[in-house]
Every structure is written in C-alpha cells, then in structure tokens.
C-alpha cells in the first residue's frame, strides 16, 4: 500500500519519461531503425518492426496515468527498461563503446556507457511501487501541489543528472587526474 500522492507523483514522472522518450524516437523513425539495427541484437528482419519500441513506450506512458492499466503499464515499463539495460550491457561486453545509445532525440549522438545500464535498472526498480495498491484517503489541495511540483522537480533533476553524466563528466574525467 502506498500513499496516493506518492503514487501519482511516481506515475506522473514515469509517464513524462516514457512519453518524451517515445516522442524523441517518433520524430525520426528512420534514424531510430538504424540505431536499432546497430545494436545487433535481433535479426535485420525484426529491425523493420523497430517502430514498435516507441509505440510501446507511448502506451506505457499513457497507461501509467489510468488506474486500471497502471500495474500492467508499470510492469511493461520495467521490462522495457531492463531490456534496454541488457542491450547496452551486451554491447559494452562486445567492446562497442562508440555505439549511439538512441536516447535523447535524433540529433543527440551519445555513446552507450555503463552508467546508462545502471540508471535503467534503478528506474525499473522505481517502477515497482506501481504494482502496489494505493491507500484510499480524501485528497486535499495540498496533494495537487505535491503531485504537480514533485513531478516537475523529478523531471528537472532527471534532465540535470542526464546532462551531467552524458555531457560533462566524460569530458572532464580524462583531464582530472593531471596532478
């Protein structure tokens, strides 16, 4: 049992995450198909179905917002995140450190990294509360503030961390140990 304010905040934040990820991929389906093929995990014939990934993300994102579909969407979202983590980990094992991750829009060419796999596992873990039923209690106006502001802060902090880990840290790491 979790508090509805906390549950709604989590659901809102993950809905934002999945919908924005789906929109990034839908903006350039062709580009995403190339990235999908480049991961070299599924035969090329299956890569033609790569549009299913953003479709699934969109479904999960919207599904998290409705009470009935929340548990199912949470489980599917967690499975998706674990699958991404596995795809990144397998390609890192293959030594392909220059593979574009396919995240962050069609113009962002970021190489995959270990922290992305760990991040995805952590996010999948955070989706677990979506499977729990919510406590029934009357909602007050303060709850709206908690849910709205909490979701926005979570999204902003996620974007900051993402930038920091993807853009800033890789550039400073080699320069740090100079003396």
């Amino acid at each position, binding site marked *: 049992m979790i508090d509805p304010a906390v549950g709604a905040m989590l659901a809102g934040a993950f809905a934002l995450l999945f919908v924005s990820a789906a929109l990034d991929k839908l903006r350039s389906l062709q580009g995403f198909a190339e990235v999908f093929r480049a991961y070299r995990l599924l035969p090329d014939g299956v890569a033609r179905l790569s549009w299913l990934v953003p479709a699934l993300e969109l479904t999960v994102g919207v599904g998290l917002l409705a009470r009935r579909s929340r548990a199912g969407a949470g489980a599917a979202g967690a499975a998706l995140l674990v699958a991404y983590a596995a795809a990144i980990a397998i390609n890192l094992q293959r030594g392909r450190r220059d593979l574009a991750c396919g995240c962050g829009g069609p113009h962002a060419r970021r190489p995959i990294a270990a922290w992305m796999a760990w991040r995805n596992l952590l996010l999948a873990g955070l989706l677990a509360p979506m499977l729990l039923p919510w406590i029934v209690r009357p909602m007050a106006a*303060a709850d709206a*503030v*908690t849910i709205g*502001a*909490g979701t*926005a*802060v979570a999204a*902003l*902090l996620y*974007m*900051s961390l993402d*930038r*920091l880990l993807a*853009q*800033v840290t*890789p*550039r*400073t790491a*080699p*320069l740090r140990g*100079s*003396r």
Partner: protein
Amino acid sequence: MTALAVSNVVLWILVLLLSVVVLALVRQLGVLHERIAPAGALMLNRGPAVGEPAPILEVADLEGHAHRVGAARADGRSTLLLFVSPTCPVCKSLLPAVKSSGKDERAWMDVILASDGDTFEQRQFVRSQGLDGIPYVVSAALGLAYQVGRLPFAALLDEHGILRARGLVNSREHLESLFEAKRLGVASLQEYFSGAL
C-alpha cells in the same frame, strides 16, 4: 495547519526554482566544456615524428657541462627541450611559465633550453632572464635535428629517448599540453580531442 500548508507550498516553489537553476547551470557547464577545450601546442609536419626515438646529440651548455640529448636515461627522467632565442619576444614572456613548470614537474622531468647564435648575447640573455640553474645549450645542430622553424618550440623526450610530444608553444597552456599529451599517450591534445568528440 495553514502555516504548514503555506510553508509547504513556498518550499515546493523554491525547490522548483532551484531545480530550474541547476538544470540551467548544468547546460552551461556542457557548453563551456565544448567552448574552452584546452588548446594544444601547434604541431608542424616536419622534424622527428612523435613516438620515434629522438636524434641523439652530444652538446655542451654554457656552464660547460656535457649533455647527451635524446639518449636513454638511466635515472628514468624525461627531458623537456625548449628552443628559445634572445631575439624572440614570445620566448621572454614564456620563460616564467617554463621556470615554474620546470619546478612543478621536477619529479620526473629536466628542462634544457636550446638556442643558436652569438654566445655573448646568449650569456646576457641568461643573466637578464634569471635562467641560471637551467642548462642552456647553444647549438645549431640541435635546432637542425628537430627542424625548428619557429620559436618558442618545445620537444618532450621520455626516459628512453623517445619523442613524446613536440610543438610550437606560446603559452603555459601549450606547454602543459605537452605534459598532458605524454600522460594520455597521444601525440597531441588536438589528436586527443578529435578522438574524444
């Protein structure tokens, strides 16, 4: 209870603002890193190649001590060979950086200054710039061996006499780029950044 509710709302607003500021700062950090990547020493495509043994030359400094520049060193120290001239104004402005770098890096590296031309003028230059204590070699052969065309030019040799980095150095940043290039195992910082981006 109302006081708590008000304080809660105010806190949320402040946390939101703070998150926006953090995101803006992180974005600026990313932009800054792109803009001010360190500049490396300019490489000219002539002279001995980086990664190959440097030419071994027997030279004597103004004090009369003999140096085997380019030979492998038993004490495991590297050598920074810096070509300067009394007539080169940039060299004069670089010399304080050379002195302090030589001090900072003295654990693993010796500095040798090299020049060419009239010995009297060179001695005056050494005196006026306070270069006592740094070996100062006057040798045309050294400059020819490294094909030095423009000054100030630096070459970093490792303990085996292998040329690790070289280039035109106009500032402390350029000078230190040679140490970084050796440490990172690349021929120049330019090569490192073109590989990293």
